[in-house]
C-alpha cells in the first residue's frame, strides 16, 4: 500500500474517531456532572471529588466508593470493591497490548492511565478500522474522557443541584447506548458476533445470580471463549 493511500486511510479513521468521541464527551459531561454533585452530597470536598476523578478515574468505582463512604464503610472494603470493579480493565489492556509492543514503555504506561471503558471502546474501534495502533488516536481516545470527566466533576460539585435529572431528558440511556453501539461496531465476523451475544447473556446471568459488579468481567471472559469454540466447531462440521 502506498504512503498516500495509508495517509488517506489514517485521515478517514481519525475523522471517524473524532465523530464517535462527540457522543462520549456528552456522556462524560453528563455522568461526570452527576458524580460531582453526588460527591458533594456524600460529603466530599471539591479537592477530594477532583482527586477521585483524576487519580482513580473510573466512573462506576467512583460512585460505589462515594456510596460506601456515605454509610461509613471502612477504607479497606472500599479499596477492595474499587479494585474488584476495575479488574475488567485488565482484559481491556490485554486486548490492546499486542498492538502496542512497538511503543516505548513510558508511552504504554501513560496510555494505561487513561484506559477506561469508553477509551477502550474508542481505541478498539480505531484499531479495527486501521488494522494497527495509532498513537495519536490512542491519546485522543483517552483524553476524550479524561478532560470532560474531570471538568464536569468540578462543575457538578459547584452547580450540580441546578441541573435536571438525566432520566427526565433521556440521557440515562447514553452509557449503555454507547457501549452497545461500540460493541456492535466491533463485530467483523461470526466469532465476534457470538462473543457479543454470549458475553451479554453471561453478564445478565452474572448480574442476577452473582453480583452486578461481576457482570462485565464474566461476560468479557465467557464471550470470547464461546465465540472461538462455536466458530471452530462450525468449521469442523463443514
Amino acid at each position, binding site marked *: 500500500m502506498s504512503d498516500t493511500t495509508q495517509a488517506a486511510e489514517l485521515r478517514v479513521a481519525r475523522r471517524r474517531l473524532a465523530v*464517535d468521541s462527540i*457522543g462520549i464527551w*456528552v456522556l462524560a459531561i453528563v455522568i461526570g456532572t452527576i458524580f460531582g454533585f453526588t460527591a458533594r452530597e456524600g460529603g*466530599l*470536598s471539591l*479537592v*477530594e471529588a477532583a*482527586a*477521585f476523578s483524576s*487519580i482513580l*478515574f*473510573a466512573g462506576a468505582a467512583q460512585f460505589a*466508593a462515594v456510596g460506601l463512604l456515605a454509610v461509613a464503610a471502612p477504607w479497606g472494603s472500599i*479499596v477492595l470493591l*474499587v*479494585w474488584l470493579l*476495575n479488574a475488567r*480493565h*485488565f482484559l481491556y*489492556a*490485554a486486548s*490492546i*497490548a*499486542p498492538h502496542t*509492543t512497538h511503543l516505548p514503555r513510558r508511552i*504504554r*504506561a501513560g496510555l*494505561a*492511565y487513561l484506559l477506561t471503558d469508553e477509551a*477502550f*471502546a474508542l481505541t478498539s474501534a480505531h484499531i479495527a478500522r486501521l488494522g494497527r495502533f495509532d498513537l495519536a488516536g490512542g491519546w485522543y481516545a483517552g483524553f476524550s474522557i479524561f478532560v470532560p470527566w474531570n471538568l464536569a466533576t468540578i462543575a457538578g460539585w459547584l452547580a450540580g443541584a441546578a441541573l435536571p435529572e438525566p432520566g427526565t431528558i*433521556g440521557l440515562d*440511556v*447514553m452509557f*449503555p*447506548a454507547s*457501549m*452497545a*453501539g461500540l*460493541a*456492535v*461496531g*466491533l463485530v467483523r465476523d461470526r*466469532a465476534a458476533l457470538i*462473543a457479543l*451475544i454470549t*458475553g*451479554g447473556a*453471561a453478564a445478565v446471568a452474572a*448480574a*442476577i445470580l452473582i453480583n452486578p459488579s461481576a*457482570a*462485565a468481567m*464474566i*461476560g*468479557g*471472559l465467557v*464471550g470470547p471463549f464461546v*465465540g*472461538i469454540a462455536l466458530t471452530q466447531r462450525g468449521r469442523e462440521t463443514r
Partner: protein
Amino acid sequence: MIDPFRTDLVPLAILGGIGTYAARALPLLAPGVDRLPAPVLTYLRLIGPAALGAIAAANIFVADGAFRVGPEAVAVITGAAIGRWRNSLLVGMAASVVVVLALRATIAA
C-alpha cells in the same frame, strides 16, 4: 458547610487508583505480549465486543436484581442497530435517547 479544599479522602483515591492502574498497566507493560499464540490473540480480539456487550446488557436487562425488558432495552438495541446501519455511534446514541423518551411518553400517556 464542606470545606472545598479538605484533603482527608485524597489518600483513599490514591489507594483505589493504585489497584486500578495496576489492572490497566500490567498487560500493557508485560514483556512478550507480541509473541502470544494465535488462539490467544483471537481470544483477546474478541474481548472488545464481549466486554462492551456485557456492560450494555447488564445495564439494560437487569433492574433490582431481576431480568427486565423495558423502554431502555428497546431504545439501546434500536440505537445500536441504527448506529450500525448509519455507520455512526453518535447517530445511534441520539436515536436511543429519542426512542426512550418516546416510549416513556407513550407508557405514561
